[in-house]
């Protein structure tokens, strides 16, 4: 029951937001004081072009973990409508060129996973704890399994 409802909620969110991963957990303090470690962001991937000031989640080639930062520069091409984007963390001193792939100056549309539209504090700590202390995850799964077995009515 718990598993299926979780799956339904996840797939439902995917459908509504149009993003492959509709929820992300903030892992670093680079957007403080806006977002702290452990906060949850709801993403939305619409057809609207990206503009400065928006907070986007992007993937960089060669990095596994997506990054959540603010767009500070946008250049939109006259003929092709392709865009070049530069991002920066609110709490970082410089822009993100050092985080991009070697020699990469701009992000393009295909790097962007979605833009942050909503915010829920603290809840992400659950997943952070589970990934960093796997033992707690196994204990929790074990306890839930036990619950399922014992709570037959």
């Amino acid at each position: 029951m718990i598993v299926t409802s979780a799956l339904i909620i996840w797939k439902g969110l995917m459908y509504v937001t149009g993003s492959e991963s509709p929820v992300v957990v903030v892992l670093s303090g680079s957007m403080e004081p806006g977002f702290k470690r452990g906060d949850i962001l709801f993403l939305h991937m619409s057809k609207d072009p990206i503009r400065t000031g928006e907070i986007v989640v992007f993937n960089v080639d060669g990095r596994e973990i997506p990054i959540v930062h603010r767009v500070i520069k946008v250049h939109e091409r006259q003929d092709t409508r392709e865009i070049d984007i530069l991002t920066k963390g609110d709490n970082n001193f410089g822009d993100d060129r050092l985080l991009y792939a070697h020699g990469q100056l701009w992000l393009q549309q295909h790097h962007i996973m979605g833009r942050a539209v909503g915010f829920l504090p603290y809840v992400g700590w659950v997943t952070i704890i589970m990934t960093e202390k796997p033992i707690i995850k196994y204990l929790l799964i074990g306890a839930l399994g036990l619950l399922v077995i014992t709570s037959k009515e």
Partner: protein
Amino acid sequence: MHSAVHRMNALFTFSVLLLAVLCGAASFLDAFTSPLSSSSSYVRADAQVLRVNRFRKQLNGNDEVSLNLNVSIDMRSLFTWNTKQVFVFLAAEYATPKNSLNQISLWDHIILDKDQANFQTKVNSKYPLIDQGSNLRGRKVDIVLHWHVMPKTGRMVRDKLLLSDFHLPEVYT
């Protein structure tokens, strides 16, 4: 039947659900507080370019500009009980033969408190205005104020306001 694990599970599920509902309710209520629904008319601001500090062509051929600006902002009306911070920035916006839109953040500031939301200051551009190419001589540039309201929980809101425009000089400094 009512084991400790059972109770913990119920408590956890309930607390997460409660947090989600509160988050939704906060966004819902925010929609009714008038400043957010039509914020541009409630924000008073002005920004003028006082001086062009530097205007040159970089070695790679891109134009680079550094500006000195006078900024005054009154955003007190954006603060409600659910406002954590307002991220405000000035952007230079212009069009060139190559790019239909260029948006470049020049200066930004985080307002954490309603008491700090009304101020006037002279600033140098924090980030240089760098064009993709060499199209800036004599170019008309709009100075646009953008703001991004971050709630304690719920939906984030952003808006913008065109403040002024100016023409860059015809020659490099």
